[in-house]
C-alpha cells in the first residue's frame, strides 16, 4: 500500500510523457518532454509552434497537462465597456494550457501570447500533481495529487475554491461527467463525486494498480425511455498502470453493482487514450489506445450491457522504418499519441521521438485487423531552423524521376499498329524469326569470324561488322562502326549492308538518337544515309508504321522549328542524292559476298519455309533472278519515290492523320532536316 511517491522513477507512475491535442479542431499538440520543455506542435504541418521552458523545469517537471476547453466567444459587441474583471465567464480560453508539476504547483500557460499566464500555488498541493481537468462550462479547474487531495480552482482569481481529501492513497486520475455535475476520481478504486456537495455518490472497484486514465464514453444512457438524470446509465472507461485491461463501468441507479461491465484488452500498458463519444444508441464508440509498446489499438463497440470476455481490438496500427536493402531490418517507430479527427474517420498519429515527433493524419477505412505503416523518419531528426522561418518545403527531385522530352517514347501517344490482321502476321513472323535466329546467328558468326581474320581495318568489313553487331546486339562492335565520322565510309557501308539489317539498324539508331546529343550528331549522318539509300526498300514494308513509329515521332518533334523549310530541304536533298546515287550505282556493283550469302540461303530452301523475313526473301529472290536488272529497278523506285513525295506533300497540307503512308513520308522527308538543324 504505497502512496505512489512523487518521483519520476516511480515504478507505478503512468508511462509515457504528458501530452494532449488542443480541443475542437486539434490544431495543436502539446507535449511536455522529460527535459522539462513544453513544446507545442502544429498538427497540420508538423511544425514546432512554440517552446516554453518553465523556470522551475528542473525541480518540478511537468507531470500532466490539459488544454482549456474552447468556448465560443460570448455575444458581446466590440464596444463593450465592461472591464475584464467583470466579464468573468464569457471568455474563450482555447489557448490556455494547464501544466501540473512534480512539486505540486500548477502553471497556466498562454499559447497565444507564448508566456506564463498564471501560477496556481497558494493553498494547493504539496506533492506531485497527477491529473488536471478543466470544467467544460464554468472555467474551474480540478486537480488531484499524491497528497491525497482533490482541489477545485477558480482560474479567474487563481485561488482554491475547495479542497477535499479524495482518497486514502494518492489520487491519480480525474474526469468530469458530460453534464458537468459529477466528478470521477481514482486512486486504485474509483469514486464518483457530486460536485456541488463534494460527497461520494458511487464507488467502483477499480484496478489493482493506480488508475492512469478515466474517460466518459457516452453522453446519453443506452435506454432512452427512462428519464435521464445526467449520470445514471452512462459508461466510462478506466485504464491503469501496468494493466493490459481497460475496464468499462456503468453508473447504475442501484448501488449494488461494483464490477466492470466489460473490458478491452491491449498488448501493453495504455499510455494515451482517445475516443469518439457516441451520441446515440446506434453509434458505436470508437476508441484508440496507444500502448507503451508503441502500438495503437482501435476498438469499435456499441456499449450495451455485460460482456464477460475481454474484447480484443478491431485494428492495430504499427509504424516501422522501411529497412533499406537486406542489411538493415525494419525497426518499429513508437506511436506517442493518437487522436480522432473531428470527422471521426481519420486519426492523427504522433510518432517518433519526443523531441521531434511526426504528426500524420491517417484515414481509417481498413477492414484489415492490422495496419503497418512504413515511414522513413530519418530525415526528420535534424532540427530545421531555416524551414521553420521560411516555411518552404522542397519536394524531392532526384534522378530516378522519369524524364520525357519530345521524341522519347511516352511523350506522345504511341503509334497504333495497323488493323489486328497484320498484327497476327507480325506475331507469326516474329515467332519464325526466333526459331531461325540461332542458326542464322551461327551462319553469320561463321562468316564474321572469317572476315575478321581476313581484314579488319578495311572498309569492306564495316557492313559485315555492322550486321554482326546488330544481330548479336554487341555494343562494342556497334560502337566501333557507328562512331565513325567519315561520311564516305558511312555511305559505302550503308550501301553495302544487307537489306534485312536495315530495320534493326534504324531501331538501333533511334535508340541512340534518344540518348546523348553528342552521339546523336553522328547518328544523324547514319540515319540520313540509310534513309536516302534504302528509301525504296522501306517504302515496300507494310508494317513500317509500328516498327519505325518512334523514329518518326522523334524526327517530327526535332524539326519543329522551320518545319516547312526543312521539309522542302529534305525533299530536295533526297531527290539530288537519289539521282546521283542512281548514277553511281551503275558503276558500283552490288556486294559480291552478300550475294553469296543470300545465295546460300536461297539454296537452303529447306529452311526457307521458316520464313526468315518476308521481305528479305522477296529481295533474295529478286537478287537471284534480277541481279542484272538491279540498276533499272533502282531508277524506277526512285521515280516512284518522287511521285510519292508529291502525293504526300498534298496530304501534309490536308491532314495530319497517322496513316502508314504518311509515316513513311515523314521518314523520308525528315532525315535531312536533322542535318539542317545541325547546320
Amino acid at each position, binding site marked *: 500500500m504505497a502512496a505512489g511517491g512523487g518521483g519520476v522513477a516511480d515504478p507505478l507512475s503512468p508511462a509515457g510523457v504528458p501530452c494532449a491535442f488542443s480541443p475542437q479542431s486539434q490544431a495543436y499538440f502539446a507535449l511536455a518532454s522529460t527535459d522539462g520543455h513544453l513544446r507545442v506542435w502544429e498538427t*497540420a*504541418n508538423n511544425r514546432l509552434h*512554440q517552446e516554453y521552458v518553465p523556470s522551475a523545469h528542473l525541480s518540478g517537471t511537468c507531470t500532466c497537462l490539459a488544454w482549456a476547453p474552447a468556448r465560443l*466567444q460570448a455575444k458581446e459587441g*466590440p*464596444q463593450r465597456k465592461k*472591464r475584464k*474583471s467583470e*466579464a468573468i*465567464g*464569457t471568455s*474563450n*480560453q*482555447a*489557448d*490556455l494550457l494547464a501544466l501540473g508539476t512534480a512539486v505540486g*504547483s500548477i502553471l497556466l500557460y*498562454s*499559447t*497565444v*501570447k*507564448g508566456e*506564463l499566464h*498564471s*501560477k496556481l*500555488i*497558494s493553498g494547493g498541493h504539496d506533492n506531485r500533481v497527477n491529473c488536471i481537468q478543466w470544467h467544460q462550462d464554468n*472555467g474551474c479547474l480540478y486537480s488531484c495529487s499524491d497528497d491525497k487531495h482533490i482541489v477545485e480552482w477558480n*482560474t*479567474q*482569481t*487563481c485561488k482554491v475554491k475547495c479542497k477535499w481529501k479524495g482518497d486514502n492513497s494518492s489520487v491519480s486520475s480525474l474526469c468530469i461527467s458530460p453534464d458537468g455535475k459529477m466528478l470521477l476520481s481514482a486512486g486504485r478504486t474509483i469514486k464518483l463525486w457530486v460536485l456541488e456537495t463534494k460527497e461520494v455518490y458511487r464507488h467502483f472497484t477499480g484496478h489493482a494498480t493506480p488508475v492512469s486514465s478515466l474517460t466518459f464514453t457516452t453522453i446519453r444512457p443506452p435506454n432512452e425511455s427512462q428519464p435521464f438524470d445526467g449520470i445514471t446509465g452512462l459508461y466510462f472507461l478506466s485504464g491503469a498502470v501496468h494493466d493490459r485491461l481497460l475496464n468499462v463501468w456503468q453508473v447504475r441507479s442501484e448501488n449494488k453493482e461494483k464490477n466492470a461491465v466489460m473490458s478491452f484488452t491491449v498488448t501493453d500498458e495504455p499510455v494515451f487514450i482517445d475516443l469518439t463519444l457516441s451520441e446515440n444508441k446506434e453509434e458505436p464508440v470508437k476508441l484508440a489506445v496507444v500502448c507503451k509498446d508503441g502500438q495503437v489499438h482501435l476498438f469499435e463497440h456499441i456499449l450495451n450491457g455485460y460482456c464477460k470476455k475481454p474484447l480484443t481490438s478491431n485494428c492495430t496500427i504499427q509504424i516501422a522504418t522501411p529497412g533499406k536493402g537486406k542489411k538493415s531490418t525494419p525497426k518499429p517507430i513508437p506511436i506517442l499519441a493518437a487522436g480522432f*479527427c*473531428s*470527422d471521426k474517420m481519420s486519426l492523427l498519429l504522433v510518432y517518433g521521438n519526443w523531441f521531434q515527433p511526426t504528426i*500524420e*493524419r491517417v484515414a481509417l477505412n481498413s477492414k484489415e485487423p492490422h495496419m503497418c505503416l512504413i*515511414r*522513413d523518419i530519418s*530525415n526528420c531528426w535534424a532540427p530545421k531552423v531555416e524551414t521553420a*522561418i*521560411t*516555411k*518552404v*518545403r522542397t*519536394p*524531392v527531385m532526384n534522378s*530516378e*524521376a*522519369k524524364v*520525357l*522530352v*519530345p521524341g522519347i*517514347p*511516352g*511523350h*506522345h*501517344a*504511341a503509334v497504333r499498329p495497323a488493323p489486328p490482321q497484320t498484327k497476327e502476321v507480325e506475331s507469326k513472323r516474329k515467332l519464325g524469326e526466333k526459331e531461325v535466329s540461332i542458326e542464322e546467328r551461327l551462319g553469320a558468326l561463321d562468316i564474321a569470324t572469317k572476315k575478321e581474320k581476313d581484314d579488319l581495318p578495311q572498309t569492306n568489313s564495316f557492313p559485315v561488322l555492322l550486321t554482326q553487331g546488330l544481330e548479336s546486339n554487341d555494343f562494342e562492335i556497334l560502337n566501333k562502326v557507328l562512331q565513325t565520322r567519315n561520311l564516305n565510309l558511312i555511305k559505302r557501308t550503308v550501301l553495302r549492308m544487307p537489306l534485312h539489317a536495315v530495320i534493326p539498324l534504324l531501331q538501333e539508331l533511334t535508340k541512340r538518337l534518344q540518348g546523348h546529343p553528342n552521339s546523336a550528331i553522328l547518328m544523324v549522318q547514319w540515319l540520313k544515309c540509310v534513309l536516302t539509300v534504302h528509301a525504296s526498300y522501306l517504302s515496300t514494308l507494310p508494317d513500317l508504321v509500328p516498327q519505325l513509329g518512334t523514329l518518326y515521332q522523334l524526327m517530327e518533334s526535332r524539326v*519543329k522549328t522551320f518545319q516547312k523549310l526543312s521539309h522542302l530541304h529534305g525533299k530536295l536533298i533526297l531527290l539530288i542524292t537519289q539521282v546521283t546515287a542512281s548514277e553511281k550505282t551503275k558503276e558500283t556493283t552490288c556486294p559480291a559476298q552478300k550475294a553469296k550469302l543470300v545465295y546460300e540461303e536461297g539454296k537452303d530452301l529447306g529452311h526457307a519455309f521458316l520464313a526468315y523475313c518476308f521481305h528479305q526473301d522477296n529481295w533474295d529472290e529478286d537478287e537471284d533472278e534480277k541481279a542484272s536488272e538491279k540498276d533499272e529497278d533502282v531508277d524506277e523506285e526512285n521515280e516512284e519515290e518522287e511521285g510519292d513525295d508529291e502525293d504526300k506533300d498534298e496530304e501534309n497540307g490536308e491532314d495530319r492523320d497517322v496513316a502508314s503512308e504518311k509515316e513513311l513520308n515523314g521518314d523520308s522527308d525528315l532525315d535531312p532536316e536533322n542535318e539542317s538543324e545541325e547546320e
Partner: protein
Amino acid sequence: MVEEEGIRVVRCGGSELNFRRAVFSADSKYIFCVSGDFIKVYSTATEECVHILQGHRNLVTGIQLNPSNHLQLYSCSVDGTIKLWDYIDGILIKTFRVGCELHALFTLSCAEDSVFVMINKGKPDVFQLASVKLPKSSSQEIEAKELSFVLDYVNQSPKCIAFGNEGEYVAAVRDFYLSVYFFKKKTTTRFTLSSSRNKKHARNNFTCVACHPKEDCIATGHKDGKIRLWRNFDDEKKYTYTCLHWHHDLVMDLAFSVTGSSLLSGGRESVLVEWREAAEKNKEFLPRLGATIEHISVSPAGDLFCTSHSDNKITIIHRNLEASAVIQGLVKDRSIFTGLMIDPRTKALVLNGKPGHLQFYSLQSDKQLYNLDIIQQEYINDSGLIQIELTKAAFGCYGNWLATVEQRQEKETELELQMKIWMYNKKTQGFVLNTKVNMPHEDHITALCFCNAEKSESSTLVTASKDGHFKVWILTDDSDIYKKAVGWTCDFVGSYHKYQATNCCFSEDGSLLAVSFEEIVTIWDSETWELKCTFCQRAGKIRHLCFGRLTCSKYLLGVTENGILCCWNLLSCALEWSTKLNVRVMEPDPNSENIAAITQSSARTNLCHEPRPLYIQKNICREEVLWGVFVPRDVPESFTSEAHQWLNRSQFYFLTKSQSLLTFSTQSPEEKLTPTSKQLLAEESLPTTPFYFLLGKHRQQQQNDKLNEALENELVQLPLTENIPAISELLHTPAHVLPSASFLCSMFVNSLLLSTETKSAEENPDDVDMEEEKESDDSDEENNFTEKIQDTNNTDLEEDIIHQLSKSEEKELKKFRKVDYSWIAAL
C-alpha cells in the same frame, strides 16, 4: 442543430498585412498591422493573432501608439474617423470624427492633444499634412474638426513624411525635393536635387525619409538606391549631405534604430541592411528575406525590428539581425493562375504562393501551412526579368498525385513548358518527382485534370492545350531489373478540327471526358478514346465546363464567353436548357449535386439540374471574384431549410481580386471572423519571483519593525484595505484608465488622512491580518505596479493613521473613475 440565421458573406482571411508599417507595442510583446478594415494584433513570440480590432467601415490607413498611454492605439481610416483602442482587451475606447478621408496618421509625444493626419482635398494626387486637435470629452463619439495645415502637396505614402528630433521639425519628400518644416520657427526649408534628364541624375527621386531620433539628421532614400544623410538643414545654404550606396534598386524604406546609432534600409533585393554609425563601411546584412522589403519598423524598446514584405508577410527580426518569427498571410502573387484547390490529404487550400511555389493554406486557422517549392530555381528578384510561372496544378487520387505545369515565355515564339507529376511518398511524408515532361504541348496548357473516379484502376491525367490537342497521360509500370517504378506516359492524343482545346473535365464515374474546343464541346469515351458526340451552341467560346454529380450526372454544364449557361443532357445528347447568365466562376460541389456560379453582377446562384437557381445572394462583394472552391466539411451541418441545404456538406470559399478570401456562413460574423479570438479573462497572476522574495521580505521586515515600534508607543489599529472603498475602487480599476499616479497620489494620501471621529471604527490589531491583506493586494494587482508601490508606500508611511475616506472625497474618486479614461498616466 445550428440556429438558422440568414446566410451572409463573411471574410475569412487572406487580406493584406503589408499595407502600412507595422507598429510594435511598447514592451515588444505585440505587433499591430492594418489589414483591410481591421487592425490585427499579433503576438511577436508566437506569431498568433491575439485580437482583431474591428470597427472601421473602410480601409484602415494608419496606426500609431498613443504617445501618452502606451496601452492604447490610435488608428485612422478612409471612413474619416480616428479611433482609440485598448489593444490588450481589444476594446474600442473612443471615436473621433474628422470628416474627410484620412490617409496616414502620425503622433508626437510632445503634442499630446493632437495627432497629424494626411488628408486629400480636391485633386486626387494632392495630399496635405494637417494636425487634428483631439478634444477631451467623456463621450464615445467626438467630433474633431479642428484642423490646422502643416504641409501642402505631400506624397501619398506615409513613408515620405517623418518627424524628427522629438517633434521639432517634420520632413517630407516628393519627387525631387525635400522640405523640412520647423514647428518653432514655422518656416519651411526646401532642398531640391537635380532632376535633369541625363543619365546620372535621372533616378534621383526621393522614395522615403526617416529622421534621427536624437540628432538633427534626416535620411532619405532614392530611386537609384542611394541613401542621403542630410545635416545642417536649418540653413538653406550650409546644408550638407553624405551618400550611402549599396542598394542597386530603389530604397523602399528606411528606419533609424531607437538610439539612432544605426540606420536600417531595405528594398527589392530582399536584404535588410543595417548601417552602423551611418558609415558606408559599417554594414551588416540580413539576406534572403524572401521578397521585396516594403516597410521597416523598429520597436520602441529597441530589441526588435520588423520588415513587411511584398508577399504579405511580416518578419520579426532580433536586434542582432536574426529572424525570429514570421507572420504570414495569404501570399499575394502577381496573379493566381492555378485557381483554388483543396488538398485532399490535409484539407488545405492550395494556390499560387511565392514565385514558383504552391502555398498550402489552412482555412480553419487562417494561417499558411507551408510553401511547396515546385520550380526549384533561385528566384531573382529584379524588375524586367521574365520568370518561370506556375500556371496549372491539380491533385489526383486522394492527394497521391500532384501535377504542375510551369511556363516561361520570353518572346512570342519561345515558349518553355514543363509539366511535373509528383507522387506523394507516404514513407517520407512528402512529394517526390515522378515524371517530368518537357514541352508536353506546343502551346499554352489551358486545362489540367485528373480522373478522380473511385473505381478506375489506372490513373489518368488529361491536359488540354492551345495547340489544338489534348493529351491523355496514364500511369504505367516502368519497372526494370534495377528498380520497381511507375511513370506516366502519353496514351492518347486527341484533337478536333485544329480548334484550340480550352477546357477538359471528367464525369464523376470517369467514363466520359468532355473537352471543349473553342465553341464546341466534345465527349470522349475514356475506355477507347473514341469521340462519342459533340455539342455546339455557337454562343462563343466555352469558358467553364463541368459535369453534374450524383443524381445529376447525366448533365453537362457549360458557360460561354457570351454569357450563356447551357445544360446538355448526355443521354439524349440534346440541349436541356440554357439561360442568359454571364457566369465568371463556376464550381461543382464534390459532395452534392450543387454547382455554384458567380456572375459578373456579383449575384450568386446555386444551380442544380434545373435552370432554377437554388439560392441567390446578391452583391457579395465590392470587387471582382476570381476563383471559387467548395471545401468539404469535416462534420456535416444539418440545415433543413432549402436555402441553407447546399451548405450542409461543403462550404464555398471564393477569392477576390484584392486576394481576400470570403465565404458564406450562417454564423454571426463575430464568431466567424475571430474563430480563435483570444480573450484572456482569467486574471493574470504571475508567480512570485526570487526578486519578490528578496524585496517583499525586506519590505515586510521593515513594516514589522515599524509596527513593533509603533506598538511600543501605542496600539495601532489597521483596518483592512479591502474595507476602505476608495482603495478597493482604485485597485479594481485597470491601470491604463487611471489618472496619472502623481495626480492620484496627493488626493489618495489625503483621503487616507485620519479624521478624528472615525478613529475607533474598526479594530484590527493582529498583524497576521495585515499580512493577509498584503497578500491579497499582491495577487490582485500584479499588473498595476505603480499602484502597488503607491499603496504600500502609503501603508508604510501612514501606518499610524486610520484609513478612512470622507464621503465627499470618495465621490470625487469615483467621479474620476467614471469621467475620463484618457488621463495621462505617466507610467
